[in-house]
């Protein structure tokens, strides 16, 4: 087991290249936004495959984005709606009087 862990650490250091956890965290939005080159993506995914903490962090970031997407919006206050519909009707009236009046 000890050998396994040692081997895993060495493999991780080798495969992950010079991506530290700190760098992975800094690049996570670039990764999620799909701006990585193929080799960057491979190095990033290699680190992810071997590092549970970064894997958790990536999931947390995805969760954060998904949560933001679910924030409810406020309904329109009735008085604002009423005011806007009035202005809409005025606009419509203006439109129809413009299009029906003969060119002078």
């Amino acid at each position, binding site marked *: 087991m000890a050998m396994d862990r040692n081997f895993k650490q060495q493999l991780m250091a080798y495969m992950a290249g010079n991506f530290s956890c700190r760098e992975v965290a800094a690049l996570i939005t670039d990764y999620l*936004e799909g701006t990585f080159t193929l080799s960057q993506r491979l190095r990033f995914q290699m680190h992810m495959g071997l590092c549970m903490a970064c894997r958790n962090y990536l999931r947390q970031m995805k969760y954060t984005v998904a949560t933001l997407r679910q924030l*409810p919006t406020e309904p*329109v206050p009735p008085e604002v*709606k009423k005011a806007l519909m009035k202005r*809409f009707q005025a606009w419509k009236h203006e439109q129809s009087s413009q299009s029906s009046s003969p060119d002078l």
Partner: protein
Amino acid sequence: MSLWSWPSNLFFVLGIPALQETIQLDEAGMVEALQRGDEAVFSAVMEAYSGSLLRLAMSFVPSRAVAEEVVQETWMGVLEGIGRFEGRSSFKTWLFRILTNRAKTRGTRERRYEPFGLPGSDSDGDDGPSLEDSLFVTEGSGKGHWADPPQGWEPDTPERALLGKECRLAIEQAIGGLPDNQRQVITLRDVEGVSAEEVCNILTISETNQRVLLHRARTKVRRVLDPYVRGEQS
């Protein structure tokens, strides 16, 4: 909660209670109905988007009252411009661009107060790395490693978490405390789901800048979310 649901980008279902029926329109159909002056469609579209417009407006102007005015001005802008709308961008992007232009005019006319909230945030938004740095060991053999390795969040998806009111408020507050430019980017990109390219277009910023601002904003919101999601574990 919005009364109107938008099942996809391809078609909208506009429920018009007064008519006791559901009108199905694609975006072109909706624009065409607005151009003709269809009152029911205008009413439904206005209800569907005003909440999003208000949220975005709040990131530009100093008060809710001004933001509400900007939203109303935006709808006036829609009526003025709908005849010339050609669908080169999505309707939603076009709407957000009108709002942004109006809000910017207001924002410069009226003095902004400093956003409250996260300590150390400045209006230039140049406070990003410090928060992220604090997550890592900065000295010794463990340099660059997690100081407190992130745990898994359970449940895995927010759909199942059904965020509590307190948590939602905390997120809203975190967004409200962000520097303006970070707030604008995260509102458009994450809350509204606008594409990165369109966000750049609406805010007239570069793609790189957009990503830097988004990253800083997301990092802060993640930190605020952390105790709530962990709390649900126990």
